[in-house]
């Protein structure tokens, strides 16, 4: 259980360009904190700095209320899963997992207990005697994960620990990691590229881009109220549909192509005042006009069947918009499809600053009748 605080942390590898810039952040003890961001945005770097593997170029790092800038990794009391596993090539799976416990002088009995528990959970029981070289990619990753889990250190750093696992195993591991974190009350800092992991596992998510924090918040808040265009397009899959828009009285003209009736809108609102406006709408908010009235008819230029859902892509001027519908829909490329776009579901951004002006209306959440 360690609180982690970052005060104006920055990092540069070559003393010129900063990879991380003025990071201010406080991670609560026992929190599951997810770090997302595009490739190369500095996630691993941040993790490695917290672990004490990279020199901190500037700022202050506190773990459990102690300044630790100067402490060595082993004095920070944490565990870490490396993005490239870092398994000891000469040790077999069992030895790899128990390596740290040996070092910490945990009793033999305890070691075996933890080993058994962990390997069962990870599905590694059969592989204990193998060398890393004889494992598949996913198996190696699980060993790396097991090594971290088994240490039960109060602060746990994980760098894409599930990226090489299949969906089923990943779903399983997701639950297990989360359960373990809860049970042991670990503070977890978790880097992932997986939307589902980010949304379901994290107490909070931080979005990093180009070494700067874009937004920190609860998953659903990030989804519903992305602080800026970057977060909007980064969180959610498929990404939010965006388009430049201008007001023409009550009508909103998107990319010179789509007209949306905005009904009565206060001319005073900043939305109207903004010079350059970008609107966004989530893929699931472009509804098929089956039960509803069709607001628009759009040309389908691509259809993707995911089995449980169907993604239809439309051309909106220069932009491609995607609609996501549950189930399997038989749509053909080239068809004109009637859709329903509700003005309530629009998010408004200032194109220049990228900042959110107005989120989609705090939609009355759907409810099923409770018996």
């Amino acid at each position, binding site marked *: 259980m360690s609180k982690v605080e970052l*005060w104006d942390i920055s990092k540069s590898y070559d003393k010129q360009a900063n990879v991380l810039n003025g990071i201010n952040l406080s991670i609560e003890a026992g929190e599951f904190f997810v770090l997302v961001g595009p490739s190369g945005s500095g996630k691993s770097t941040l993790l490695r700095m917290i672990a004490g593997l990279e020199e901190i170029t500037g700022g202050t790092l506190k773990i459990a209320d102690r*300044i630790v800038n*100067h402490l060595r990794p082993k004095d920070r009391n944490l565990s870490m899963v490396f993005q490239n596993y870092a398994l000891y090539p000469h040790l077999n799976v069992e030895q790899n997992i128990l390596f740290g416990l040996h070092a910490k002088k945990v009793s033999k009995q305890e070691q075996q207990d933890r080993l058994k528990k962990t390997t069962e959970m990870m599905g590694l029981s059969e592989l204990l005697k193998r060398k890393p070289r004889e494992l598949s990619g996913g198996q190696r990753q699980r060993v790396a994960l097991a090594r971290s889990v088994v240490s039960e250190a109060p602060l746990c750093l994980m760098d894409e620990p599930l990226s090489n696992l299949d969906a089923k195993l990943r779903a399983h591991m997701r639950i297990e990691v989360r359960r373990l974190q809860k049970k042991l009350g670990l503070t977890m800092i978790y880097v992932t590229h997986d939307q589902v992991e980010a949304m379901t596992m994290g107490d909070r998510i931080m979005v990093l881009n180009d070494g700067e924090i874009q937004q920190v918040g609860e998953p659903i808040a990030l989804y519903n109220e992305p602080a800026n265009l970057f977060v909007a397009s980064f969180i959610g899959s498929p990404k939010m549909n965006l388009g430049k828009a201008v007001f023409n009285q009550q009508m909103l003209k998107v990319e010179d192509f789509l007209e949306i009736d905005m009904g009565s809108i206060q001319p005073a609102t900043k939305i109207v005042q903004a010079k350059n406006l970008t609107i966004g709408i989530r893929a699931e908010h472009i509804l098929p006009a089956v039960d509803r009235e069709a607001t628009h008819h759009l040309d389908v230029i691509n259809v993707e069947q995911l089995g449980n859902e169907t993604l239809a892509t439309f051309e909106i001027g220069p932009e491609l918009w995607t609609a996501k519908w549950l189930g399997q829909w038989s749509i053909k490329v080239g068809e004109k499809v009637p859709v329903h776009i509700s003005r309530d579901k629009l998010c408004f951004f200032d194109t220049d600053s990228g900042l959110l002006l107005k989120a989609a209306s705090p939609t009355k959440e759907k409810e099923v009748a409770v018996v």
Partner: protein
Amino acid sequence: MKEAVVLQEQYRKIDFLKIKKKQKRVRFVKGMLFLLPSMILFSVFLFYPMARTLYLSFFLTDNSGATTVFVGLDNFKNIFTSPIFLKSLQSTFLFVLYTVPGTIVISLFLAVIANEKLKGIGFFRMIFSSTMGISVAAASVFWMFLFHPTMGWLNQLLEAVGLEGIGWLTDPKWALISVSISTIWMNLGFTFLILLGGLQSIDSHLYESAEIDGASYLYKLRRITIPMLSPTLFFVITVSFINAFQTFGQIDMLTRGGPQNETNLLVYSIYQEAFENYQYGTASAQAVVLFVIILLMTLLQFKLGERKVHYQ
């Protein structure tokens, strides 16, 4: 805001400079502890003799090596005006020039062909590394017979193809080359073994990837093997350099510095000066010069070489 103030206070309380200094000190002490055993032995068995050598180089000595007359830099002046010493310098450089590239190229070739996964490769590897197991004295004897002016295999071979025999060890044009050939042979085993080790620790995925790209054998050799081997090569080159500068045994056995001082390499000259002529003063001066030369060459090598070396 308040937090920031608290933080600052805390920050101030921790004297980072002091802690950093302390950590540095701890790291230094730890490093020293790891180095200590070596350092002690070095001091006793290398630095002390070196210092003594330097000291002696300013004196003339009697037969038992005790200093008699302080001559300042005269010993150095003498050796640098002595045509024999200059000749010996020249021979040494030539010898290095012949043996180092020769050894490296041939043993690299051997290591590369012995790196293939073939049946019975272990046997070949043993043969290739075998010269390492043969002492210089024994090896010199082998070569002495090969170089024999009339019955040596080499001249018999030459005569068999209608060429005239060569005075391998007696002709001043050939002696240094002959000694170099035998030296290369003696060094092959060791260099081969080290290079083979280097080759085998290259990640096989790289070759797999290149293989898929359709890279030819030579291309892989040039673009993957050699660069990936560069740390090992660097090591081998540096060590070969130093060893070449310090060659002694085979000279003593094969030519005793002759003909006409052609093969009178520095260390041999030092040895003779000290152990046969009992001129420890000049011997020491020569040793100091040798030391400085090797030092400079190695420094140069580290400056130029280590930059080009790719560690994984």
